[in-house]
Every structure is written in structure tokens, then in C-alpha cells.
């Protein structure tokens, strides 16, 4: 079955991972800008990373028949550094016109500090100014509930924010309802240890429905599985859910959300079965 991995940090993965993803039906990935696992020493380092996301990575994905889309930002792990944040944000606008850039992300909070919140607001204003989609990271573990609440409340303070153009990611059992109730899209990310398993993701779909919810691998440089989305599909099948429902979650939902960027395209074969959810080549 075809699928779109809505959140995958492919710069951290090998070409073998692209190969496995292609073999399991992946036709497109969306790659948010991310923390390298260590703090970068200059804004120019970020600019190099943005070139990697917009120039090098799409070519690597194309070799496996996978479309590569990306998001620009200074990630939440480095967002407490306000001076660096200002310098990086100043470098972002020139990348926004690139054909594979679909928005600003993944922005948000890490430990829920005042500085992180200010950097988050700077990114939101940049996105509003340039009419970009927004992809939001929510904090890990004990910080997730508080960070998600702060995120939702901050976004609701902006009159110009359209909830259907914002995806608040890494939702779990205690945060998914508050995100959906506020009208935003949400994402469930499948991690072996720190986030949600395929079984719990299926539980969340059963309890909250499949509208405005995407499921992604969020594969990166840490323990993570690049073929986690087909593993989720298998879990749904194991429980007897319909192929139509599974496709809705792993293909049509991300296509509908990303399609709002005006840049997201699928090959003709794929879009034949998609209806109006995505742009046709």
C-alpha cells in the first residue's frame, strides 16, 4: 500500500533506508528541520543544513522514486538561544520559495522555557507573514502535556492563524484531544521507546477517529524505525480495520494537509486514486 511518511529526518538515514521505505510503499516524505544531536556553532551552519534539505536530499530520495518535501526552522532543542534564533530566522525567507519547502517546522518547545516560547512566537510570525503551513514539535515525556497546552494557547492568541494549516505533532493519549478540539491537525509518531507504538497509535485512531490525524515514523539519528508506518498499517490490518481506513490515515490525510502548501505533488498513478486531495502532475 502507498504511504506518505509525514515526518522523517532523512539526512540522518542511509540510502538503504530509502530503499526499504520504497519497497514498503513510501511515495513521499516530509522532512522537518531538526536538531543534529549537538548544537550548531553558527547560523551559517544552519544555512548549510537548509541547503542539504532543499538541494541534496531531494535528489537522494528521487533515486528511489520518493518525493522529498521539507520544512525550515531553528528546532526547539536550540530555541533557547535567542541570539542564534534571530540569526537563523533571518536566513530562512530565501529558502521558502524553494519547490520542496512546504512550510515552517518543526518549531515549538523543548523544555518549555520562556526563551523557547519567544523563539516559537518568532517562527509563528514568520510563517504568518509568508503564508506558510506550520509543523509543530511537542516536547518529550514529562514535558509534553505542559508544552502542548502552552503551544495551543499561544496559537489561539493569534487571530491570523488558521488551525487547518497547522499540524501539532508527537501527540499522545493525554494531548491528542486538546489538539483536535482546537481545530488543528495532529500527528502520531512511532518510536520504539519514547513516543507511541504502532499498537497505541491504532488505539488512538480507534478512540479519536481518523480525521486530521497523520501517522509518521519520525525516524532520525536515534532509536527509530524508517518503516514504522507500514508496521502501523499491519497492526491496523491485524485488528480487522479496512484498507480504506488505513489508506485514509497513511496516505490521504498527509496528502490533504501537505496539499495546502500549493507545492505538494504526487505522480499521476498515485493521484488517480486520491481524488481531489492533492495536486496532479
Amino acid at each position, binding site marked *: 500500500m502507498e504511504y506518505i511518511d509525514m515526518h522523517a529526518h532523512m539526512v540522518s538515514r542511509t540510502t538503504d533506508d530509502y530503499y526499504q521505505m520504497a519497497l514498503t510503499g513510501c511515495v513521499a516524505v516530509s522532512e522537518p528541520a531538526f536538531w543534529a544531536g549537538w548544537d550548531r556553532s553558527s547560523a551559517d551552519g544552519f544555512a548549510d543544513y537548509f541547503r542539504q534539505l532543499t538541494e541534496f536530499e531531494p535528489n537522494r530520495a528521487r533515486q528511489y522514486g520518493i518525493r522529498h518535501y521539507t520544512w525550515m526552522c531553528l528546532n526547539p532543542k536550540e530555541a533557547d538561544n535567542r541570539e542564534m534564533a534571530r540569526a537563523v530566522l533571518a536566513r530562512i525567507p530565501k529558502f521558502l520559495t524553494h519547490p520542496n519547502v512546504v512550510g515552517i517546522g518543526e518549531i515549538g518547545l523543548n*523544555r518549555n*522555557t520562556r526563551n523557547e516560547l519567544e523563539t516559537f512566537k518568532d517562527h509563528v510570525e514568520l510563517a504568518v507573514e509568508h503564508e506558510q503551513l506550520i509543523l509543530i514539535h511537542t516536547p518529550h*515525556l514529562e514535558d509534553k502535556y505542559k508544552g502542548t497546552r502552552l503551544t495551543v494557547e499561544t496559537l489561539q492568541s493569534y487571530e491570523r492563524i488558521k488551525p487547518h494549516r497547522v499540524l501539532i505533532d508527537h501527540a499522545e493519549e493525554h494531548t491528542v484531544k486538546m489538539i483536535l478540539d482546537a481545530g488543528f491537525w495532529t500527528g502520531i509518531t512511532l518510536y520504539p521507546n519514547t513516543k507511541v507504538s504502532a499498537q*497505541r497509535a491504532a488505539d488512538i485512531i480507534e478512540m479519536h*477517529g481518523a480525521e486530521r490525524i497523520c501517522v509518521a515514523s519520525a525516524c532520525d539519528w536515534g532509536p527509530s524505525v524508517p518503516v514504522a508506518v507500514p508496521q502501523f498499517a499491519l497492526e491496523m490490518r491485524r485488528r480487522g480495520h479496512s484498507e480504506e481506513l488505513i489508506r485514509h490515515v497513511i496516505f490521504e490525510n498527509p496528502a490533504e494537509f501537505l496539499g495546502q502548501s500549493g507545492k505538494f505533488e504526487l505522480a499521476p498513478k498515485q493521484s488517480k486514486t486520491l481524488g481531489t486531495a492533492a495536486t496532479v502532475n
Partner: protein
Amino acid sequence: MFPEYATCPLTEQKLLDEYFIENRTRLLEIAAFLDRLDRAQEQSSSPDFRTRAFLQALEVLFSSAENRTEQIQMIFSDPTLEPLEALNQKSARGAYQRV
């Protein structure tokens, strides 16, 4: 559009047939982890905040609440809403340290 929402399509019997063994394994892993903590060479005079949260979460498992997962998530969560004044550490530790 998708009528199977809100419930798991499998019967209780089928769920047990499909998932009992893997969850039995998970339960034994937790038991072994607690035994391992008891066998640790150096024991703290008072339980670590993570141990306290873990044991509190186990109490929820024994309850008949319908939303055990969400309740356990909240036991581990920071319930406050005031942002931190300054960054004190880069990474989360899995449980909120209540004073």
C-alpha cells in the same frame, strides 16, 4: 464514514488470542525491572522521583478505570503551566519531579 471508530473491531476473545503472550512478556519485564531495582548494590534512603511515579502508575493498572493510559501519562507529566525561567537541562527524564 468509518463506522469502526470508538471500538476495537476484535472480540475480547480474539484480542486475548492475538495479544496475550506479548503483553504477558511486557508484564514480566516490569516485574524483572522492579526486582533488579531491589537487587541494586546501593539503595537510596528514599525512592527516586521516577520510582515513585512508576509505582503510582502501577496502581492505576490495578484499577478498573477506562482510561488507564491517559491517567498514567498524567502521573508522569508536569501539570504546571508556567514556562521555566531558564533552561536547566536539555533532555526530559521521563517523570516530573514533584516537590
